[in-house]
């Protein structure tokens, strides 16, 4: 009994519960055939959602109104720049990665300048910067059809006993970021700012530096995601980031992070990302048409947030 009570008090439990349920339904429907493969696929695809989800989580946690909508275009720009620079050559891997990170850094700084210097609300600032970033990617990568370096393609698709190597790396990374969130001065500062920005400043926290670091972190993670994703899917494309706009926000919220800020949860992002992928798989398996699939996905996400988001009302 008490175990259940303790667990249900932790928001991330719900996302894992949801994940398990949809997987079970799929497995029962198919008679258990290929249900291990489904997990492997889910791990592979969820990995990319988790990378950007963690960045988005830190941004959302800094308080109401904070959100990074430039993630999809940063993924596209970073992928395009890296692929073009590396030109399918293993020797250029490090340079490609550095260029990707450079893109992320530039985007993060630019976003923050719009928010801070021009005092534009983050939602508008990152949305408008995403148009600029995407245009840059289009101008830079016109007719882009370059294969990733073989080493990168191999690394992003390699598996050990059905578990993708990349997923293991990102699970370790998620653990690291969980420690950063809960045990470092930076993480604590983010949580404090999300509850009350003014009180955080008056408690000696350098609010603007922390916000700056957070927007840069989010953009850097989006850039890394773009780099790895183009290796995984055999090259960069301009719309490869598109689905991560809603996905990055949805996994944060389903994973138990408060949209009102000040409360965040890293493990929940993994559960939520797996849940999202398995949900679509389940609907596919059940033979739902594209329209039904979208409607069901929407409804189920709303339902999960309603159940899992059963926070005590904030005063």
């Amino acid at each position, binding site marked *: 009994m008490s175990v259940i009570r303790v667990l249900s008090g932790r928001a991330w439990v719900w996302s894992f519960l949801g994940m398990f349920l949809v997987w079970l339904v799929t497995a029962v429907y198919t008679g258990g055939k290929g249900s291990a493969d489904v997990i492997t696929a889910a791990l592979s695809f969820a990995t990319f959602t988790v990378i950007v989800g963690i960045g988005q989580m830190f941004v959302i946690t800094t308080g109401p109104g904070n959100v990074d909508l430039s993630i999809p275009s940063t993924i596209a720009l970073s992928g395009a720049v890296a692929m073009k620079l590396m030109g399918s050559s293993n020797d250029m891997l490090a340079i490609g990665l550095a260029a990707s990170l450079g893109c992320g850094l530039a985007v993060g700084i630019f976003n923050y300048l719009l928010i801070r210097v021009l005092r534009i609300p983050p939602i508008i600032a990152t949305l408008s910067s995403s148009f600029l970033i995407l245009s840059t990617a289009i101008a830079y990568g016109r007719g882009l059809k370059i294969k990733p370096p073989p080493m990168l393609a191999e690394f992003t698709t390699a598996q050990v006993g059905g578990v993708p190597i990349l997923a293991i790396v990102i699970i370790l990374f998620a653990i690291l970021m969980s*420690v950063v969130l809960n*045990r*470092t001065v930076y993480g604590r*500062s983010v949580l404090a700012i999300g*509850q009350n920005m003014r*009180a955080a400043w008056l408690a*000696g926290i350098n609010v603007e530096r922390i916000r700056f670091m957070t927007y840069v972190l989010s953009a850097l993670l989006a850039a890394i995601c773009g780099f790895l994703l183009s290796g995984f899917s055999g090259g960069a494309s301009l719309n490869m980031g598109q689905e991560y706009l809603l996905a990055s926000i949805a996994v944060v919220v389903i994973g138990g992070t408060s949209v009102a800020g000040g409360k965040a949860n890293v493990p929940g992002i993994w559960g939520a990302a797996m849940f999202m992928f398995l949900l679509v798989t389940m609907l596919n398996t059940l033979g739902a048409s594209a329209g039904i699939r979208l409607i069901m996905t929407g409804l189920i996400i709303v339902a999960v947030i309603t159940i899992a988001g059963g926070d005590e009302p*904030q*005063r």
Partner: protein
Amino acid sequence: MTASDTNIVTLENVAKHFGAVRALDGVDLKVDAGECLGLVGHNGAGKSTLMHVLAGTLSPGAGSMGIRGHDLTGSYNVTAAGENGIRCVFQELSLCPNLTVAENARIFHPSLTGWGWKRRAGAMIRDKLDEIFPGHGIHADDVVGDLSIGKRQMVEIARAFTTTDTPLHLVILDEPTSSLDAHTSKQLLDFVRKAVGEGQSCILISHVLGEILTYSDRIVVMKDGLVVASRAGSDFTRDTLVAAMGNVVEMEEIKEREARDVNRDHAPLVIEARSDTGQDSVPFVAHKGEIVGLAGLASHGQTAMLLKIYDAAMRGRNTATVSGPVALVAGDRQTDGVFHLWSIARNIGVRSLRNMVRNGLIDPAAEAEMGREWQERIKIKAPDMNDNILSLSGGNQQKALFARALASDAEIILMDDPMRGVDVGTKLEVYDLIRAEAQKGRTFLWYTTEMDELYNCDHTYVFRDGAIVADLSRGDLSEEKVLQSSFKASA
């Protein structure tokens, strides 16, 4: 004479427990028409909980409630409170910051509808403000969020006294003067006496015992969730009242404390600042180990001066000269102080995170230790320092904010009227703590709206309209001098 004519509220054996905390443990309370009831007790004695029960925002776990002769046990709620003309001014202000004064006034009065409701609501609240606080300087179309905490409190109080269709029977004032200066406090209390004379009732909660003794018909003393005394106001003296509250601290007159021996010539200068007005008669200076007071009417530039010094220290700006790290004790704790999702211990530790880092990570043991140490030193009344900060009473939250600043490495402590809602016993302990810390070389800048607290200060700067108009040393300090300087322009 039937009960419903004279009796507004009759509570019998009312109890309310929050987990293991017995906030109310069987309380009897009667309020009659045309009575001003003073309610006193230590932080966490259950005063605010009792008022929440009366306002209908908390339903009691046990006991019976009779309101104006009707038994409303179990069915009493906020709507019933409104229908019976019971209003409450809570300690945590409840105005909507994004709305104007007039719009906030309208929230209480659903009958104000149709064309021109905003104008009518504005006129209503303006008339009431004029009646209670002549010369208040608040406009009906001011956005509440832009007002200082003192002015917000005035709006909140005036709003509670406005009436449209339902007659007003009882107004509960929970620490109404804690954000008001001496002048506006007196305006309010005089108004309360007038309202009571006209047949309304009032419950007055305050830690300023002088107010309670002067203005109450009857005084109820609470302790540990129980009513321990209920007698006519004239039966109490300051000393018997303190004794009834169970105060172990010897009540000593702060005024008689000897001036501390701080030699301005030898102690190094740590702060030098000027207000933005350019009208200062003297610059604001503080030396190492000094306690410097900021006085005058509420929100005449004292908080602005503290924030200017804080800003200069944090950002390394040269708008003011500050040598040494600073920490601030907020008075407006909901807006400036408390992190509502965190435990008490985390709220205390947040200013000292850097000092708790071991091997790059915050050490939970160090944080817990700091919480334990300060729970003991400043007597925070909580079963567990890992409980949420909001489980504390207002005064205990304030103590946690004190602990946050005093536990830090700051050499300069800025205090923005920090004693709001803190009981007498704790105040005396905190005064001693401040003096002891000053002796060790810490500098305190202390904005206060309570005259008595200035007697703890070595130097007091009086502010008016944003500028410094007087510099009084401890020997020169008197209430007359402070008031004289505060009002010079208008007199």
